[in-house]
């Protein structure tokens, strides 16, 4: 089983468009959208949902006002500032946003006046797409435990891949380097970081690449929109070289990204013979070969 993740650190560099393009170049693969709070891959892959599952994770404290003696112990013990005192009615309530579900207040309330209920924070889907199966999810607004929802998506993708005799998973990752990214990255076989020539993207990608190094994941880079700043592209290429990270390809700034998106198509479908599609094919081939994946993973399009 091989797992490749497309991520970026900074948002908006082209992760999802590029993941979708790779999906259309692949066969015998499971796709996993691990950007669970603002997932977009489904907008291109137009999945038909086969199965859905509620994501119940973590707990939330609720004070029963009639049983509360207003002693204030919960307020003193809570480290998440989740117990909100009401000075007028001399009572306490739990802020659902701030509550981390640690259970300290529940355990120590002398009146046993605090309930501890399951928190449903999202949905996980198994879908069919024109390129193969997709596991994706939707975290409810403001949802916590996004890292655990990512882990659920990955677990389901692995189970599905095993059950259907596919040995390859392509992951569209979330932005950032925090909890959902860590959950997306662990135990992957390769990271492809999509960057653009800007100081922000370079800064963010370096943090991501440090994270992947921490997890000992082989990492590669694609520079998207390189011609926005050829000067910075050069600087970035040198920086990545110093870090021992190979740049697998460069893509020029091209409206084909938006045009394909508007048609709900991958770039390969929208403009199969264009420059961007050709470059994407060559990047995908390099990535596959680097990782000694089975050549049958690459779809026969006639061009390859």
């Amino acid at each position, binding site marked *: 089983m091989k797992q490749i993740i497309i991520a970026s*650190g*900074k*948002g*908006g*560099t082209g992760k999802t468009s590029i993941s979708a393009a790779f999906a259309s170049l692949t066969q015998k693969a499971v796709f996993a959208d691990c950007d669970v*709070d*603002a997932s*977009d891959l489904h*907008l291109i892959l137009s999945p038909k949902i086969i199965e859905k599952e509620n994501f119940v994770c*973590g*707990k939330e404290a609720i004070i029963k006002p009639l049983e509360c003696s207003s002693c204030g112990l919960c307020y003193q*013990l809570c*480290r*998440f*500032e989740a117990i909100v005192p009401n000075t007028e009615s001399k009572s306490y309530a739990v802020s659902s*946003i*701030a509550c*981390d*579900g*640690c*259970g*300290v207040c529940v*355990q*120590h309330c002398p009146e046993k006046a605090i309930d501890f209920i399951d928190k449903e924070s999202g949905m996980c889907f198994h879908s069919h797409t024109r390129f193969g199966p997709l596991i994706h999810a939707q*975290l409810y*607004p*403001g*949802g*916590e435990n996004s*890292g655990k929802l990512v882990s659920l998506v990955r677990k389901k993708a692995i189970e599905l891949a095993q059950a259907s005799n596919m040995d390859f998973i392509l992951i569209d990752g*979330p*932005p*950032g*380097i*925090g*909890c*959902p*990214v*860590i959950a997306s990255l662990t135990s992957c076989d390769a990271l492809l970081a999509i960057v*653009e*020539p*800007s*100081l*922000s993207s370079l*800064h*963010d990608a370096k*943090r991501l690449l*440090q*994270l992947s190094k*921490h997890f000992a994941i082989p990492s590669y880079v694609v520079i998207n*929109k390189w011609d*926005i*700043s050829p000067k*910075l592209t050069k600087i970035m290429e040198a920086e990545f070289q110093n870090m021992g990270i190979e740049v697998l390809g460069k893509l020029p*700034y091209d*409206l084909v990204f*938006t045009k394909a*998106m*508007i048609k*709900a198509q991958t770039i390969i479908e929208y403009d199969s013979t264009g420059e961007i599609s050709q470059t994407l094919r060559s990047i995908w081939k390099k990535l596959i070969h680097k990782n000694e994946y089975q050549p049958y993973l690459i779809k026969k399009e006639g061009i390859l």
Partner: protein
Amino acid sequence: MKIAVASGKGGTGKTTLAIALALSLEEEETFLLDCDVEEPNIHLFLPFKDCENKAISILCPLIATDACTGCGLCVEQCMYNAIVKIKQKAMVFTELCHGCGACALICPEKAITEIEHHIGNLSTSQGNFLNLVQGCLDIGNPLAIPVIKAVKKAAPSKTPWIILDCPPGTSCSMIHSISGADAIILVTEPTPFGYHDLKLAVNTLKSFSNAFFGVIINRCNSGDESIINYCNKENIPILLQIPESRKIAEAYAQGSSLLEVMPEYKVILKSLLYDLKQKAGQAI
């Protein structure tokens, strides 16, 4: 007046706008807070002069193995699976700990003390008018929320203007960044991804916030009309539309602010802020 600049989708221009908004205020006391603690970027555009650094930490358990009887109460109590029992002794996985203190409170042997565990850095820089605050999460640490909280606390609440550059998405880190704001600006772009994530962000605001909010459409001539139609239908004010411009993209790439290449936006953004202040129900 606290204004949060947020978006569902990443890379729509939050940081560019937050910086330009703060700079447009010129000689008014302002705090610009970088709440995108996973990937803070404001420092790439505005130097943190005479920067003061402070460690951000949470309290994690340290188990006195001699005193631990292996009763397992702490393991049972920990909601984050950060403590396991190995060979009749409790063992802590610090990277899973949220620092709630439950284990120390429950241990009958008082075998658990708590020590500070570094999770990030807080940097502040005071200017004559513009003050900058940035939180930076340690690489490999998943806990963004305590860092975001520390950033927000660094600005005195009576500051005339507080502008928050928020993380992308609609999860807990976005909610914690926008909570308490008087007005929220959602930055989007007119593409299907931008539109889809804007709807998610709007639903999130509707569930969690009573603050006034409006939309800024960046690169407004690069896609389709769906966002304008949506905003009109939902009665969401479109505060500003910024056309696609290579000049802006190139300036951004090199760490220049929007106002350096398009100084005409200074007046526009300043009046946008005053307009927001009025709409948020505060006397000017």
